[in-house]
């Protein structure tokens, strides 16, 4: 019997949330060990469990994987969320990389100075509306399919949905000029594994709050 993957990270979204999304989308149950103190992090580092002394770290298939992108690629490849050939995989990769750039703004947002936070919401909205959403709207409009690549669910769809929903929490009408993305959001959210992840009681983490920010500072600041 295979052991479940085990995720090591603070109890919040951060860089691990994409991993939670992909595992959930693939229908893979997982355990979590939440980092709460600097001592816990030190213990992981001293025990050589973290390749570059950093989290996220995922114990899976006898390995201790680090580096968010590497983890996402591994899970996607293993669970057939990475296209049918190298060309599809590369397209998915490009879309994921772009979306992760946008998601990065959301991840860093709670750690900005309060005065900068409102300005950054405007920046995020602009980047989403001018640089990223038009690309995906066009892709969906042009091929008329449900998924971004190859007419099947991929890592690109999962990460895009994650990012759209996170942005909607801050800017509720952010998809107003993108009808195909609105449809995409509904369709992908209704995939059974994803629908389950979006229901209360799942491992999906709530938006970052002051407690999360404080915990992160306590763990990672020297």
């Amino acid at each position, binding site marked *: 019997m295979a052991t479940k993957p085990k995720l090591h990270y603070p109890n919040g979204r951060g860089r691990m949330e994409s991993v939670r999304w992909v595992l959930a989308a693939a229908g893979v149950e997982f355990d979590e060990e939440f980092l709460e103190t600097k001592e816990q992090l030190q213990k992981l580092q001293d025990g050589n469990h973290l*390749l570059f002394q950093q989290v996220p770290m995922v114990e899976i298939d006898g*390995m201790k994987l680090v580096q968010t*992108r590497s983890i996402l*690629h*591994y899970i996607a490849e*293993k669970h057939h969320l990475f296209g049918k050939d*190298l060309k599809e995989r590369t397209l998915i990769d490009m879309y994921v990389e772009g979306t992760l750039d946008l998601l990065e703004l959301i991840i860093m947002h709670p750690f900005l100075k309060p005065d900068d936070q409102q300005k950054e919401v405007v920046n995020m909205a602009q980047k989403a509306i001018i640089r990223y959403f038009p*690309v995906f709207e066009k892709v969906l409009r042009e091929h008329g399919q449900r998924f971004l690549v190859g007419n099947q669910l991929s890592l690109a769809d999962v990460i895009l949905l994650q990012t759209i929903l996170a942005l909607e929490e801050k800017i509720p009408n952010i998809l107003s000029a993108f009808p195909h993305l609105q449809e995409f959001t509904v369709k992908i959210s209704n995939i059974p594994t994803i629908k389950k992840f979006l229901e209360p009681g799942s491992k999906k983490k709530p938006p970052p709050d002051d407690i999360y920010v404080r915990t992160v500072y306590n763990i990672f600041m020297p």
Partner: protein
Amino acid sequence: MTTKPKLCYFRGRGRMESIRWLLAAAGVEFEEEFIETREQYEKLQKEGLLLFGQVPMVEIDGMVLTQTRAILSYLAAKYDSYGKDLKETVRINMYADGTLDLMMMIALAAFKPPEEKEENLTLIVKKAKTRYFPVFEKILNDRGEDFLVGNKFSWADIQLLEVILMVEELDASVLADFPLLKAFEARISNIPTIRKFLQPGSPRKSILQF
């Protein structure tokens, strides 16, 4: 006759340099279009060649690729530098991602104000010596092989050599405590395609070109 890949970027290292390394290591000749004016950049955007309005961009095999890591992953797979199975690939990815983090710190240092630059570069050398190089020294020690993964030359080896040379430009003695990395550096530098890339006149960009 296939067309050569075409790289589109500024005349400097930045995010394109790892791509140049990979192509060169694979013995692939390529062309470069250097963006030197705002007009050139806007022209590329208008032509719809830049997916998210950004470079690096590489035209290869009938595709227009952007996003550094996506390009690197494609090339690594295409040139059989990505391991023999998923477990090897993920190790290569982790090592490459680590080196890319360190290289990004160095690339971004160029844009820091002069008064912060020295402190920044010292910090980078320290990170290299405490966080990254010990990891690779240990891998080479534990496995006793010539290469990082699967006893075969891979993308991870190219990335490691690239970052070693970049950090040595900041501090020539940085490998003093890493004998296996020193040997690795000599060994990988002597691979014919890489030796060629390290010679003057190659597409390799210099430290002065950010």
